[in-house]
């Protein structure tokens, strides 16, 4: 009788007793806007909230997520090993060294993106959703097959955008390609409040006046990100850091908590500016 039930129902529903996690792709179109960093930090923050999380590096041929997490020396098997049935999923899942409940499925480094078969990718994500609360898929740059495969198994999308003309344009394009199915939410990365204040950088409002997406949060252009990436320790491990805390706020919003989107601290006037504004006032 149990069998009959599972045949009649969809594969998702057949896993009824198990969990059905959320499969979220992080994408942007443009490269270098911080997809991988965001994936690592958001995954860390979600895991620290007590959720079980698996991160899939879908950037086949350009494996990077392992570096950001500091797991590069532990990779024995990768995504394509699993998709091509050489190893089991459990063999290929690498436990994070900092956070419990966080796992990585690394990309194949010496293979190419078109070697991934879309249906197999979909099946893999579906099976991961039965085991994890969150499946975060780090999408490669571009909108070709690598993008399509990364997106294939996902149900939701987070688009990462920097306040630059080219990045906004690419996100706009990607959102057009995603359509309505993924209900994309926006993370604005690398904002520099000081530059925004001076009118030298697009503001959060400028960006989202164009994209018009639900805003998950804004991450500052934080030098510590470079340091933590050098070390392979996501900044989200350090909640006392404002940017680390911002990732936690984004994770909370993603999980449905009613908290405002994190914003970088407002630009403080520098000493020169304060002097300058005094001088300016006297002059005018």
């Amino acid at each position, binding site marked *: 009788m149990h069998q009959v039930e599972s045949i009649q129902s969809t594969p998702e529903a057949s896993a009824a007793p198990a969990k059905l996690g959320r499969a979220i792709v992080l994408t942007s179109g443009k490269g270098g806007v911080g997809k991988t960093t965001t994936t690592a930090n958001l995954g860390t923050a979600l895991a620290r909230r007590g959720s079980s999380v698996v991160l899939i590096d879908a950037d086949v041929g350009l494996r990077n997520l392992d570096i950001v997490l500091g797991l590069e020396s532990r990779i024995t098997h990768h995504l394509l090993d699993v998709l091509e049935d050489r190893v089991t999923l459990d063999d290929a899942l690498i436990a994070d060294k900092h956070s419990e409940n966080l796992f990585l499925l690394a990309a194949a480094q010496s293979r190419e993106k078109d070697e991934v078969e879309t249906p197999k990718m979909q099946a893999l994500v579906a099976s991961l959703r039965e085991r994890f609360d969150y499946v975060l898929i780090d999408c490669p740059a571009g909108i070709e097959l690598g993008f399509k495969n990364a997106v294939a198994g996902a149900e939701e999308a987070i688009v990462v955008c920097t306040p*630059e*003309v080219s990045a*906004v*344009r690419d996100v*706009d*394009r990607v959102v*057009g390609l995603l359509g309505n199915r993924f209900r994309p939410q926006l993370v604005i990365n690398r904002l520099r409040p000081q530059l*925004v204040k*001076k*009118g*030298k*950088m*697009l*503001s959060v409002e*400028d960006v989202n006046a*164009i994209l018009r997406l639900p805003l998950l949060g804004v991450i500052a252009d934080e030098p510590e990100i470079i340091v933590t990436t050098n070390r392979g320790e996501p900044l989200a491990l350090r909640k006392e850091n404002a940017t680390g805390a911002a990732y936690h706020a984004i994770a909370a919003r993603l999980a449905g908590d009613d908290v405002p989107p994190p914003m970088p601290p407002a630009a403080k006037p520098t000493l*020169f*500016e304060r002097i*300058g504004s005094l*001088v*300016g006032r006297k002059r005018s």
Partner: protein
Amino acid sequence: MIEFLKRLFGHQGSSATAKERLRLVLMTDHLELAPEMIEQMKRELVEVISRHVEVDREHIEVNFERQDRTLALLANIPILSVNRPNGKAESTPPPPKPPKPASAKAATRNGEAPPSRKRRRRKKSQSQPQASTAPA
């Protein structure tokens, strides 16, 4: 010091430029994303114009062009003949007009370029509505 302060305050931010460029580029992108919309527009343009003049449907060109601050629609619709009002509508080709491609584009090239957002440029015939529209 003055120089420094000038640099600090005198500069007009470049984010306004970024915004403007972004607005324009996205407008073009979105048009490119919807070729079926352009086709539809072309059909409708031809339909309207065909009420007044007979056009060469084979050689219609509709393009969008960036013109410094605006996006312009450029339609090149060759006119084969002018339909007479209260006339025997179709096949009798009106004698005077030879099938000269009235290039709207060329006609307005050396023009004034007012910064309207979308301009339709086409040769306008005397717009006397006529019943029959020279069926295809």
